[in-house]
């Protein structure tokens, strides 16, 4: 409602196709589409659901802030590697949102302003570091987040693109349009800093400490983190919970914040262990002129029950390895996805015999069939070899692989492995695998992808012991 006029605030895709758009008078819209479904706008509810979405997005990074009416800020500095790369993080984020029925466009850039502009007016995706200016320059000046009246003035002057505005002399620009236009311009180019105030949900456990004098030494940081971790763990203990994910937010004197995130493989409230997960990465924090506040947030918690620890000296002295802590420490270095176990899959196709599972998944107890001779090293993809067999369907007498000629002394086979159509194998070529031993004793796993009569070729697939 603007004055007494009822206008459209938002329109769904179908409505947009029918020619409706935000800002249009409702009467005009109803004239265009007679049986239009109209719902009253509820800005408060929209904002609440945006906050709810921001809470959900904390799964990606500790520093998330809602940007009403329709945006979210996510500071992904220091967390992208947990998803593989920035591109993968974006893909993950947008595909999850799409699955929930939320149309979303996302961008990663060096500065929040640039990301805002590229997500709304550009192509989205990842803006490479240092290329912000090139990417932002051709965008419309509407991407600058400036007031509507200033926009129309700029339009009247024939300035349509950010690049044109940036090319103007600075002093007249500020005099004519005010300081805020210049500030927005600097923010979109990444020259001016823009703080993001992180949203911390109410019931989240935090421990924080503010310093009268800013600190910056690595040793100080480490001891502070340990102190905060102890504090946090006491709180967790009181609630009977353990942390699955912990965020560290360092507020610098110049209002920039650095954040680190670590995950644990299972709920944990061992302060020393949790503090040690940050140890390696604390040196990547640039303290600048000093850090004035440090906040430790248990952003994801799970109920945790204490386990009876076996007393030393009773029974046989077997030290159970705490695999949870080891996996955490490894995961903090290379990302949790890179730490895994392999479990057998019911399949005989070599490339598909194992599946990754979580490193701490309960033991499956299943093994591969024991009488199958399998190599310990697999070439993926297989490499072509030139081989000569004396008779069709006999193992080769010699073969040339990587320009070296090997004479086969003994061989075993064939073992036929047929493609598994139920697993999506295309083609019908069954492979005949032979184990061959060369004159030197080296054992290889080579296969022919079709019978000799049908022009089967030979491939090297693995090395036996």
């Amino acid at each position: 409602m603007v004055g007494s006029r009822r206008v459209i605030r938002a329109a769904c895709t179908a409505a947009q196709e029918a020619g409706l758009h935000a800002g249009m008078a409702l009467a005009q819209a109803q004239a265009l589409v007679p049986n239009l479904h109209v719902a009253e706008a509820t800005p408060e509810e929209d904002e609440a659901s945006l906050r709810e979405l921001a809470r959900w997005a904390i799964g990606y990074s500790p520093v998330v802030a809602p940007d009403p009416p329709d945006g979210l800020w996510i500071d992904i500095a220091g967390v992208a590697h947990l998803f593989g790369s920035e591109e993968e993080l974006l893909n993950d984020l947008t595909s999850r949102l799409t699955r929930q029925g939320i149309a979303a466009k996302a961008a990663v850039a060096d500065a929040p302003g640039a990301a805002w502009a590229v997500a709304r007016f550009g192509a989205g995706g990842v803006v490479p570091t240092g290329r912000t200016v090139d990417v932002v320059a051709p965008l419309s000046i509407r991407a600058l987040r400036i007031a509507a009246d200033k926009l129309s003035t700029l339009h009247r002057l024939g300035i349509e693109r950010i690049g044109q505005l940036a090319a103007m002399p600075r002093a007249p620009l500020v005099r004519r349009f005010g300081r805020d236009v210049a500030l927005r311009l600097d923010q979109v180019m990444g020259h001016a800093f823009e703080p993001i105030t992180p949203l911390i949900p109410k019931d989240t456990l935090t421990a924080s400490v503010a310093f009268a004098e800013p600190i910056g030494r690595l040793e100080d940081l480490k001891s502070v983190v340990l102190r905060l971790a102890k504090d946090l763990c006491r709180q967790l203990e009181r609630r009977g919970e353990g942390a699955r994910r912990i965020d560290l937010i360092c507020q610098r004197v110049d209002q920039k914040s650095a954040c680190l995130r670590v995950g644990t493989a299972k709920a944990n409230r061992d302060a020393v262990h949790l503090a040690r997960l940050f140890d390696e990465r604390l040196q990547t924090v640039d303290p600048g002129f000093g850090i004035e506040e440090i906040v430790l947030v248990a952003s994801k918690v799970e109920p945790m029950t204490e386990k009876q620890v076996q007393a030393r000296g009773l029974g046989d002295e077997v030290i159970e390895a705490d695999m949870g802590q080891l996996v955490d420490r490894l995961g903090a270095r290379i990302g949790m996805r890179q730490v895994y176990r392999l479990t057998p899959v019911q399949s005989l196709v070599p490339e598909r015999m194992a599946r990754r599972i979580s490193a701490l998944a309960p033991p499956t107890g299943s093994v591969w069939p024991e009488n199958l001779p399998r190599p310990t090293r697999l070439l993926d993809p297989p490499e072509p070899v030139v081989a000569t067999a004396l008779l069709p369907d006999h193992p080769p007498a010699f073969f040339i692989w990587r320009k070296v000629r090997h004479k086969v002394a003994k061989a075993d086979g064939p073992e036929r492995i047929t493609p598994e159509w139920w697993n999506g194998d295309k083609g019908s070529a069954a492979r005949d695998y032979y184990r061959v031993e060369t004159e030197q004793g080296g054992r290889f796993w080579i296969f022919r992808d079709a019978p000799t009569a049908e022009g089967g070729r030979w491939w090297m697939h693995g090395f036996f012991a």
Partner: protein
Amino acid sequence: MHAGQQDRLADLRLQIARLEGCSHRVKPLSFGLCDLDGHLPGGGLARGALHEMIEAGLASEFAGCTTLFTAGIAARLKGPVLWCLTRRDLFAPGLLRAGLHPDRVIYAEAESDREILPLIEEGLREKGLAAVVGEVTRMGLTASRRLQLAAEATGVTALVIRRWWTVAEKDLVHLPTAAVTRWRIAPAPSELMPAPGLGRERWQVELLRCRGAAPRTWILEACDAKGRLALPADLADRSDQAADRRAVAS
């Protein structure tokens, strides 16, 4: 030797052991072969120490035996195993042939050698692991010393497979390190079978370097399903002078 002298020798050994750290506190892992165990100081492969396995061959085509030899050692130790790797050519079903159950192995996959060495050290600092297996090309003296100290402190055995693909890398893996033993495993022609087929594979196991023992070469039969090596029946009584000479020459 007099009884007094023997006492003094035992006392000296104890003192040296104390100086060298605590790696001799736990009993070494026996191979179950008198020939091999008798040659190694302490009667087996020292636990809580760094051991290196080098791949033999012209173009790393014998990588399989080194892997299985290492897996066999890890399988005979008790507890979970951490396997740190950079390339994805390891084929887990093959490890089962040495008796390494898939539930026991946790893999950590890193991008480069520089990332993998800290992972190995992290694993070595975890008491209760059976062994940490690392696949590494570059490992300097300092890095290997760190790993050796970490292994000594916790008693976890470090088994490092030195992988190489080019001639330059081959030279690199033969540079000295602080490892307690260094092995090179190459295949050897297996026993002739009466019928076409393959018998149990044989390896030429070379002990290139060992603290407290001379280099030596054995021809052994490969790991069985429990990770045990064996002495070939037809070679068991043969003199291995030739093998000794070869080791000295290399």
